[in-house]
């Protein structure tokens, strides 16, 4: 596809999602209390969008991933929360 075709197909959808992200961050700012590690991880992942290479989706996923290599001793629960609580 040409860039024009990609824009014609996906611009409105991406625009909508971009505004949703902006509104989400505004909502967080307006709310009270402390944020947990997910907000910092989210803001860090957003920086991946500014990069020039066409590997931004991978960059965002990597940014939100557990970077360690060894199995853990015991499961803290069954679910995942979408971000890793440690520091990359």
């Amino acid at each position: 596809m040409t860039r024009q075709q990609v824009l014609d197909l996906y611009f409105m959808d991406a625009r909508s999602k971009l505004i949703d992200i902006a509104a989400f961050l505004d909502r967080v700012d307006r709310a009270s209390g402390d944020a947990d590690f997910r907000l910092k991880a989210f803001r860090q992942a957003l920086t991946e969008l500014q990069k020039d290479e066409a590997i931004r989706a991978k960059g965002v996923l990597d940014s939100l991933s557990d970077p360690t290599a060894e199995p853990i001793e015991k499961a803290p629960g069954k679910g995942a929360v979408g971000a890793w609580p440690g520091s990359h």
Partner: protein
Amino acid sequence: MVSRVTDDYEAMVTAGCRAVCEPAFWAGYDRSGVQGFYDYFCQLTDYEPKRAAKFGLPHFTWLCINPKESEDVKLADEVLSIIPHFLSRENVLGIGEIGLNKNTRNELKVLEQHIDLAARHDQMILVHTPHLEDKRKGTRLILDALKADSRIKPERVIIDHVEEHTIQMVLDEGFWAGITLYPESKTTPPRAIDMFEVYGGQRVWLNSACDWGRSDPLAVPKTAIEMRRRGHSEETIDALIHGNPVRFLSQNPRFTVR
């Protein structure tokens, strides 16, 4: 599909689906003992094929104790011991969906036991990779466990739920990569097609999730529509959404589609 209503089978047939492959997975709660798994395997190999057959949809299945219940190694041992009893059922394709959930030592131990079971019984393997922040690490651990067993042929194993940060490592190791389509988590149709366009379609297949939560049994046919919007040919679409799964699954002679 134990988590779906019969209408979903009818909708899939209406949309052109030719077969359904259902992995053993979490019930949404932990089963209290091995008898619960025995009953579940009977459901997967007896009742569900009949329910799907009412709509002309061939039903196949994979058997295992899923990673979310693998933290209990004693229960896992008991479940592993009854799986061979079901491997001769005519709709069983292999062992799955095995893998990891939170990347624990116990989960890894049970994964290795499943790999051994598959090797001893010459079974194909379907692998579940962990969710969200656990996926990249878990995928690496799973690939290492599979590669450590020289009896395992990568071309007979599909690593499911790949995303942009894991697909390359799966293909590099010679395995098939499954892209699972979900409305929210995992992969949307546009992202799935992006991966197909970037990484090629030689060992890639798409699958719909038919889960307890929000999921869409028609996600694959809807992705075909999205591919047409991008200008992919009917031949390319058919090769990806029908030809590839048939090519992989036909390694098991039980798998046939009309």
